[in-house]
């Protein structure tokens, strides 16, 4: 036996294998790598291959923020859009919660009205944008209204889902201890709904952003949407992309705020 046994020294793991293991343990590295790679590709494309009328390199965009903000009307546009977003989001949350609770808490409401909500949610609303302009004018009102109708449905659905899959035993238990209807709503249904409500709010926020900006692009008299079309028509990709980057940053920050709140309120789910 011993004669036929060959001593094979275990090869030390190769560089490829080690890199693979490292990547698996640090998913953030790969993520960052892909993002950087995209920026590099963009930089190269913009510098050497694409007509500068259509694309600006990220290095230039990054330093164009000052320029964008110095453009007459842009700070006011940012303020206006932000105002429209805030108002639209607040209204969407209120409508979403009220309708969601009304529909979600009763079997009758759920059976009767849920199909209507699903149907309305399914309509691509961009097709009826002109009607919004017709009814609400070309000012902030139509943008807010369009933002509301985009944002309220995901919130509604989340609230309905949130109040529905509650464990019956929790309601029975609360009732057996003498909880009133209001107390059940406040101490059982509300906390149960919170995590789902927050994910609904995140979707709703995206919806509101979409609605408001679409309306601004369409009507084009003020706001960020207006300036994106101005910069596009002037073949000024640096400012356009700078503005878009600011907008993206704003969306990310808002989203992150809601996500943090969600994590905080759902900390019992571990």
């Amino acid at each position, binding site marked *: 036996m011993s004669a036929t046994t060959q001593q094979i020294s275990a090869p030390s793991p190769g560089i490829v294998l080690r890199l693979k293991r490292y990547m698996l343990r640090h998913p953030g590295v790969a993520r960052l790598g892909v993002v950087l790679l995209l920026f590099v590709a963009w930089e190269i494309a913009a510098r050497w291959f694409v007509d500068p009328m259509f694309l600006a390199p990220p290095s230039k965009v990054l330093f164009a923020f000052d320029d964008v903000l110095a453009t007459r009307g842009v700070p006011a546009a940012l303020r206006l859009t932000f105002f429209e977003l805030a108002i639209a989001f607040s209204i969407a949350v209120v409508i979403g919660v009220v309708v969601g609770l009304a529909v979600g808490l009763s079997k009758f409401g759920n059976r009767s009205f849920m199909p209507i909500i699903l149907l309305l949610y399914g309509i691509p609303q961009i097709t009826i944008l002109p009607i919004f302009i017709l009814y609400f004018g070309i000012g902030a009102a139509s943008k807010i209204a369009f933002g509301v109708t985009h944002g309220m449905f995901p919130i509604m659905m989340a609230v309905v889902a949130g109040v529905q899959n509650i*464990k*019956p*035993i*929790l*309601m*029975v*238990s*609360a*009732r*057996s*201890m*003498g*909880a*009133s209807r209001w*107390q059940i709503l406040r*101490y*059982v249904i509300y*906390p*149960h709904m*919170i995590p789902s409500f927050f994910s609904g709010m995140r979707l709703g926020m995206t919806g509101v952003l979409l609605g408001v900006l679409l309306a601004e692009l369409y009507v084009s008299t003020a706001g960020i949407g207006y300036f994106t079309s101005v910069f596009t028509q002037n073949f000024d990709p640096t400012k356009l992309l700078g503005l878009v980057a600011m907008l993206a940053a704003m969306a990310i920050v808002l989203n992150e705020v809601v996500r943090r709140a969600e994590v905080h309120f759902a900390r*019992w*789910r*571990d």
Partner: protein
Amino acid sequence: MTTIATPDAAKADAAIRVRNVSHHFGEEGEARHVRALLDTSLDVERGELLCLIGPSGCGKSTLLNVMGGLFEPTTGTVTVGDKPVRGPMPHDIAFIFQENALFPWNTIFENIMLGMTFQGVPKSEREDRARRALEAVGLDEFADHYPSQLSGGMRQRAALARALSLETSILLMDEPFGALDEQTRMVLGEDLSVLLSRSKKTIVFVTHSLGEAVFLADRVAVFSARPGTIKEVIEIDEPHPRKPEFMTSAKFHTLRDRLYELLHDEIRKSMSQSAKPKRAYEDAVAKGEA
């Protein structure tokens, strides 16, 4: 009807009086119609621990829910003290359920406080009572844990603490250890026996386990198969708190065998029936019937 084993003299002092209670789920003629409980009468004496035992689907949980006012019986009446039961009676009756009924978004301490909020305990008393209840079940170190961070046995202890903090004279326990492993339930059973011998509460305890019934109960009410009614009531004459040695005594085994004898045919009968009642029961709970 013929199976009330309580002497007339004791009736005057009954904590819970059940008279001719029948309960159906669903409407007559419907596919989901189930006769869960048939013409059942029973007196629960003050300060005793009464076990309800029977084959699954025999209506013992239904009877417990009727006693506590969570289901309204189709016919018959229940009185607690001298008040007729027409809905939950949080000042007289506390429940402990088989399923984990703690609010997952509240810590154990908050759960106990919330129970007292529902019951209407003045704010100034709540914290004190919550601490005492936690100590009584040995969970004082886990006050700030969420239910998901505790084991099944600890969760049921917490549920017991919540019920104790309500300081009701009656505890209704629906297979409280049903979802736990045998070793855990044995230990919890012993603890419960100690705890209750001190508290003088009236307890009705639903169980599947013959051993648990004999070990804990002063009396065991044996149910027939569906539609269930009480077939016989057996006395377990052994002082509380019960020692683990009781479980290995000849007396324990004689009583346990007697129970098994009574139950055996009923279990066979119930196994030939469909699983319908369980579902009807769960639907009723989900609907919050009563």
